[in-house]
């Protein structure tokens, strides 16, 4: 320790962090994610336009479901997103707990309401699909029930985010809840299926569904991509919003501190 006050050692040049860490820095994220917004918006708008045209004007009637295949084009993308978004939240929860990734809890917080809305839409369109095909809006069948439970888990996570004042602490704790939920979802799915077969030996419909001809698959795929692109867009915008919100919060805190001290 031979550092005397007058001969300060020159600051060592900072080691340049690798590209992954640079992407992860919230400030850097604000810079590069800006260039994602418009392309994603345009891509999802175009995909929605094409997908909706297909589903309204260029979709054959399925020989079993008739006109109702059109509901499938909005049902399946939302059902897919309801699970995809949770998988993303679980991955970001790992990011929070294992690597303390600064963007991971932002991603979790941003995704939760989006996932809840997509899950609610999956249930809503599923109910409307079920009414003419099976004669009931709601069937306590395995898939619908576990999707409902998934929605409840989403809502619990949103409620927890809202209850915390300290968002950094909230990030770590909610990551634990998210992971516990992720581990539990297969158990819930299994138990609900088991319960379902116990009470309904004769299933109303088969889970495998009919084999789909190509002409139905095209609009389905396009709509799925459209909804996924929309999710990507909203996720990026919400993550930016959250980073800016935290910046505003800390600035107001600083201002309050200085105001109090002066």
């Amino acid at each position, binding site marked *: 320790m031979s550092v005397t006050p007058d001969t300060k050692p020159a600051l060592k040049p900072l080691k340049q962090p690798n590209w992954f860490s640079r992407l992860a820095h919230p400030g850097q994220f604000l810079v590069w994610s800006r260039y994602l917004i418009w392309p994603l918006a345009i891509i999802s708008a175009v995909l929605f336009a094409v997908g909706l045209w297909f589903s309204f004007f260029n979709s054959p009637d399925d020989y079993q479901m008739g006109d109702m295949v059109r509901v499938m084009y909005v049902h399946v993308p939302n059902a897919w997103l309801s699970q995809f978004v949770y998988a993303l939240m679980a991955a970001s929860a790992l990011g929070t707990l294992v690597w303390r990734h600064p963007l991971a809890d932002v991603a979790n917080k941003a995704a939760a309401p989006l996932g809840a809305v997509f899950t609610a839409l999956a249930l809503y369109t599923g109910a*409307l699909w079920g009414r003419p095909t099976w004669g009931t809006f709601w069937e306590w069948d395995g898939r619908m029930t576990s999707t409902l439970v998934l929605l409840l888990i989403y809502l619990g996570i949103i409620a927890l985010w809202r209850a915390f004042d300290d968002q950094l602490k909230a990030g770590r704790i909610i990551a634990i809840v998210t992971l516990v939920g992720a581990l539990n979802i297969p158990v819930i799915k299994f138990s609900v299926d088991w319960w379902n077969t116990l009470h309904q030996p004769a299933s109303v419909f088969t889970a495998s569904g009919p084999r789909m001809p190509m002409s139905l698959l095209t609009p389905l795929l396009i709509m799925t991509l459209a909804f996924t692109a929309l999710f990507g867009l909203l996720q990026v*915008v919400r993550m930016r919003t959250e980073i800016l919100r935290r910046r505003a919060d800390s600035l107001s805190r600083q201002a309050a501190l200085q105001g109090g001290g002066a």
Partner: protein
Amino acid sequence: MIGDGAHVEFIAWAYAGVAVLTLGLIGYVVWDLSRVKARLAALDKAGIRRRSERDAQ
């Protein structure tokens, strides 16, 4: 084209519900962003900004 029309009301309800909720979600996300931006702008106007941006002035 739209087929036999047996279940048109269900299809209409499904698409309408999805449209309302999705557009509502987009609206909420945009409103949230504009709200936060307004807060930052108000702070900026009061002369409170980050150190990195203070030097540039």
